[in-house]
């Protein structure tokens, strides 16, 4: 099997006419886990949404290639079927649609007509993955995210990740709102996905998650672009010094001053 590759070059993204992401670069291959950290409002979720194709986020320039194919030309569902996955910071609730139906529809959407997953196989796989995440079986028949607690929603995102087996996943603050046990279960799920054919970008504010999912690279994002890349030790340094320390080291001023 070939190793998948995601290349993002000089990405610029605007939201409602306001420029947020300003020259974001990232190269990622299957088998790699990257962490993306940065202060609030710096554009991390905006990068994720733009890559997934949220209609509100307008890519004004730059490119994003998945195995050489232009992601930005594709509709949201096509990007997903091409192998992209985004665990959202705020997952939507869909009333009246059970988790199981949702997942089966999504899986069959990828497999295509005539190649649907046999029901028994689906149920077995779902059972197994839910067990791995310590999710109660009842979540299969509950409506998508409706009435789920914050932590349950996050776990449900990872369940979808495990069921859909994408080439690349972006996990946007998957650790926020998780208690320490839930964090371990989620990490276990992600670690189980580790393979040559899967790459993962973890957006987080806390180094703690990275103790459980060890990243190959850590990127620091400020003012709409990556300003520093390093190994796991970078997250530790950040934890100690905070963003102000990092800014001083890099000679970065606040957004307004840069723009002015």
């Amino acid at each position, binding site marked *: 099997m070939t190793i998948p590759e995601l290349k993002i070059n000089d990405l610029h993204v605007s939201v409602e006419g306001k420029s947020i992401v300003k020259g974001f670069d990232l190269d990622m291959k299957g088998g790699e886990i990257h962490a993306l950290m940065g202060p609030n409002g710096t554009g991390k979720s905006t990068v994720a949404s733009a890559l997934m194709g949220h209609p509100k986020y307008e890519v004004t320039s730059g490119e994003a290639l998945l195995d050489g194919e232009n992601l930005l030309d594709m509709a949201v569902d096509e990007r997903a079927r091409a192998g992209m996955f985004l665990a959202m910071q705020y997952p939507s609730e869909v009333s009246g649609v059970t988790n199981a*139906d949702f997942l089966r*529809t999504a899986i069959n959407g990828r497999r295509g007509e005539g190649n649907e997953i046999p029901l028994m196989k689906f149920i077995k796989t779902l059972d197994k993955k839910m067990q791995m995440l310590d999710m109660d079986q009842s979540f299969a028949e509950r409506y998508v995210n409706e009435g789920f607690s914050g932590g349950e929603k996050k776990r449900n995102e990872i369940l979808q990740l495990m069921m859909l087996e994408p080439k690349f996943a972006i996990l946007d603050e998957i650790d926020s709102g998780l208690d320490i046990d839930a964090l371990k279960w989620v990490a276990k799920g992600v670690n189980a996905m580790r393979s040559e054919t899967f790459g993962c970008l973890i957006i987080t504010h806390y180094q703690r998650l990275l103790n459980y999912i060890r990243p190959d690279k850590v990127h620091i994002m400020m003012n709409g672009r990556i300003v520093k890349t390093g190994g796991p030790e970078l997250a530790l340094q950040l934890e100690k010094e905070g963003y102000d320390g990092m800014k001083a080291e890099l000679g970065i001023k606040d957004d307004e001053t840069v723009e002015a």
Partner: protein
Amino acid sequence: MSIQVKDLPFDAEEISKFAEKRNEPKWFSDIRLKGLAHAEELPLPAPEKTRIADWNFTHFNYQIRSSAGSQLSELPQPVQKVMPRDAGNVLIHVNGVPVYSHVAEHLKEQGVIYTDLATAIREYGELVANYYFKTTPIDRHRLTALNAAVVNGGTFLYVPKNVTISEPFQTVYYQDAPSSGLVAHTLVVAEENSSVTFVESYLSDQAVGEGAANIVDEVVAKANAQVRFGAVDEFTEQMVTYVSRQAEIARDGRIQWALGQMNDGNTLSENATNLEGDGAAADIKAVSVGSGSQKQNFDNYVRHVGKATQSQLLVRAAQMDASNSIFNARTKIERGASGADGEQTQRVLMLSDQARGDANPILLIDEYDVIAGHAASVGRVDPDQLYYLMSRGIKQAVAEKLIVEGFLAPIVDLLPIDTVRDQLTTLIERKVG
């Protein structure tokens, strides 16, 4: 501008003969003639914002014979589909004619009556006469009068005092005679302290072509009685439907309506619940999907008369293609109905630029000490939900379908017979797909 009403295609002589042929008692044929007289004079109803003057409510063939055999295996395929998987209490009408029925012995022994209207007026005439056209006046308008005049089908369900039944009673009407009209009248009577579940399905085949349905359902729940009433309407697109479902609820009585209003043709629907007794309660849930170029008008009405009466009304609808539907929800709290609590919610999802949907919440309150609330919205599919589903690889059309089906699910889930629930689910899938 005066509304031009087409003349009626039948007269008193013809109707008397029809009644005679059916061996009907005099009191019943008298009601027919009275209905005819009213139908000749009264205007059509005037539903708000829906023009029905040119809908064909009156020209159809009401003297039809059933084409179906009376063996279960001979029943039309669509009927067999909605039959219970195990032997239940069922009554099947084809072109208005009862062709099959089954009622559990132990229920008959308890005095439960479940039969077609024609049989009921012959065998339980007095009982039927007590309830026939009592919640709904014959002379409300031309269409109720027409129902009285040419009724050619219907069901009678009677549950004696203190009898509580968990198994549902099911009625299926199937039309396939060309240009036919189904004029059905159903009575559900639950005596004091009784409890019953009734579900009706209306189906037609394309063979009917231009036909009509005129349905009047009357429900009476006596003190402390409980009625669960489910319905799925599935008439083909060239059939014009008038359907009235009305209930009268006595002290501490309760009704739950679960209505799947899925006709493909023009439809005028009146649903009304009269909470007459203190502590009476109503739970009304209705779903519809407008498709093609059909026009529909749904009026859901609850009247609070007794003290501490409660009502909850939930209407959910999806409008596809170039369909046009008006949804009126009316909650009326009469003076003296202190402690009443009436809530209504109507939500309409628009799935096409050519579709039209209008939700009108109406509260009429003549008493101080009450709680009443309404919510009405007409909107589009939530773009964030759509994005979420699509981000998992689901195509837009499929994602929209999932969202709409999910939106309508709370009512589907309420239908007490699984085959009827399946009927409604399949129907929604077809109409939304």
